């Protein structure tokens, strides 16, 4: 029983935690290649060689950092990503953490991610990282509401807050079609929680790397790894909430989940670098004034659809 309920779920969640970010890095490499020439050691080896270099480089220390919080922040971000991955159902029975409120638990992971990203920038006690940290909080506090609305939208037809129920409610029609606004809005949340592309307010170029500006070596490795892992966890939740999770013909459920997650990751890897970084002020306005009302509309749509 221990094997069944503890060791086996642990194995596959941790495997996804390791493999997922690697595949995302490969996808990022493919996108970069499609946008311009890249050389180096080839698509499959490039993430590993980058990681190896980070392991060799010494970790930086600043003058008077909050040392423990600074080292904890990347590890906590990784732990949050792992927690998110544990919620993803791979099939009706393959669920590491199948609790009645897993949908809300994912929401709280999003909220705590903001805290952790802030902590990373704050703890270094340097100027550029500090600005990056505060800037990210503006984004983190804005996208959380959109995420809540969109996820409540998928809970309506499921009549439950458990992600497994959300999937079974999509037997007839996936939520991506049933609630057409939901997935696009949720993808924006995904870019925001991992501060990629247009929402890269934390580690942006105008701050010479933002919260990472004074971070080097192994700490940077864990940070970037956690950032990718968080996107993998996000893609798992997006798959569950909108793409019908394990549902699909011919293939076994877990394979479907993996394919759909890869598709979401590929879409996000392509969307990320496609847009210019938004200014923080415009970002907050966009989130509250444009996207939040759209999330309202999505919820109303979902409500009407669920009653019909």
């Amino acid at each position, binding site marked *: 029983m221990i094997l069944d309920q503890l060791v086996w779920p642990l194995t596959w969640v941790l495997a996804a935690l390791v493999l997922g970010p690697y595949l995302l890095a490969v996808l990022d490499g493919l996108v970069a290649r499609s946008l311009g020439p890249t050389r*180096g050691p080839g698509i499959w*080896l490039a993430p590993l060689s980058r990681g190896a*270099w980070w392991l060799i480089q010494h970790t930086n220390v600043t*003058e008077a950092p909050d040392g423990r919080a600074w080292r904890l922040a990347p590890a906590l971000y990784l732990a949050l990503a792992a927690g998110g991955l544990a919620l993803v159902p791979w099939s009706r029975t393959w669920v590491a953490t199948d609790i009645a409120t897993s949908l809300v638990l994912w929401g709280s992971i999003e909220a705590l991610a903001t805290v952790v990203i802030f902590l990373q920038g704050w703890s270094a006690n340097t100027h550029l990282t500090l*600005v990056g940290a505060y800037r990210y909080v503006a984004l983190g506090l804005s996208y959380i509401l959109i995420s809540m609305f969109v996820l409540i939208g998928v809970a309506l037809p499921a009549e439950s807050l458990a992600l497994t129920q959300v999937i079974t409610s999509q037997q007839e029609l996936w939520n991506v079609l049933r609630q057409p606004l939901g997935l696009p809005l949720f993808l924006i949340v995904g870019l925001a929680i991992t501060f990629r592309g247009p929402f890269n307010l934390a580690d*942006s170029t105008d701050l*010479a790397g933002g919260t990472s500006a004074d*971070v080097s070596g192994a700490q940077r490795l864990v940070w970037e790894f956690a950032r990718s892992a968080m996107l993998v966890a996000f893609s798992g939740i997006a798959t569950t909430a909108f793409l019908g999770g394990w549902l699909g013909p011919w293939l076994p459920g877990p394979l479907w989940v993996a394919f759909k997650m890869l598709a979401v990751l590929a879409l996000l890897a392509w969307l990320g670098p496609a847009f210019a970084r*938004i*200014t923080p002020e415009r970002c907050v306005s966009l989130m509250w004034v444009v996207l939040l009302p759209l999330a309202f509309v999505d919820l109303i749509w979902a409500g009407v659809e669920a009653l019909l």
Partner: protein
Amino acid sequence: MAVSWLARLAARAPVPVFPALGMRGEEALYRLALSPDIKRVDSPRHASLLLVAGGVPPSMQQALRRVHDQLPAPFTTLWYRSAPLVELPQAAVTTVDSLDALPGALVESHGRLLRNTVGRSPRLLPDAPPHPWQGLGDDGHGGEGMMGGVPYGRPMAMPPTADLRDGLALDILTFRLGPFFPLWPPGFEAEVTLQGDIIQQFSVRSSPFPRALAPVFHEARERPVAIAVLERARARHHLQALFHALHLAGLEDLARHALRLADTCPSGDIVLLAKWFTAFERRLRRRGFFVLHLPKCGALRKKQAESQGGFAARAAGIERDVRAEDDGYRRLAFSMMTQQAGDTRARWRQRLAEIAQSFDLAARAQRDDMHTAQTDAVETPRGAWHDTRPKDTSHLLEDLLPGLEWGEALATLASLELAALSPWPREEPAETPEEGAA
């Protein structure tokens, strides 16, 4: 054994290079940006190579030492057309004088650095905190009371008298940024006071290095030159500036694209270039460079715009362009374009429109082999060059940037060209020497 295996793997990654640009170091930067083996980074913490490109004046050598010491071990240095700091050991120094050899030299240094331990750059500055603090104060922290003293070697931030925006007097952060801050013009150093992420005060401590133009602009002051060559050089200049703005906006692939266009400018087929540029501009718009990234602030006042001249003045609605008075251009039916707003976004709209106009003029001038008529003045990308070259105008920032958010301020800075013009032309690569030597 395990370590060497790791090192061999790491040596295959793109080389992370932090460029510290001295005088006339930009060309090295542009070359790096286009090289697929190199990864240019904005923070020395992310680099294993310090590339010093161009001459560093003695007054900035201390700052260079500070940047040098901020690279985490292991790292080494490479000097492109620059004299290495004397205290560096020979093993940690590679000098390169040829642009074409630069990427290869960087890759080689990186590989050597990871393979063996010799050649690692040592620390140059003494290992001492900025102020003595240990053992001072009540708790040995270097502090006195809540806010006093120099805990951990630095004083604490203190509130100013008043806030510019909403009257809340919270702490300000004052620091000097530059001259090797990669998102600023090379050589530019300023004292910045931030409150939150809003700039409260901005004072220039050292102006950016003078910017060298293509030789054709200097020739145009002496004798009539082919309009096609002049306009190609102008477009190239603006495209290289666009590279910086796009890097700032996080659009790396478009930034490289702008550089590639710039490299094709001197000799490429002009009709094709114009077509590529139109497509490029459309992509810029579609990918949110204007709508998402460029702020609608940083507007120059009338007087400032006049003193700045060039595209910045035209973006502010001032119709002034030496080309309009030139008979050569008149025969090409040159028409001046202006924008009204005069802010950062308008400036980029203006510059992009001027690039397109340059391609158009160059295409027609090339067909009819037109030359400029007047030699007493030339419109450079930086502004009109009558009797004197356009001067450094970085002091404008002291008025322009306070009140702006950090990212908006940097975007505004990138939309302006403030450096003086260098009295010497840029050394051109081998493709176009015949116009220069004729």
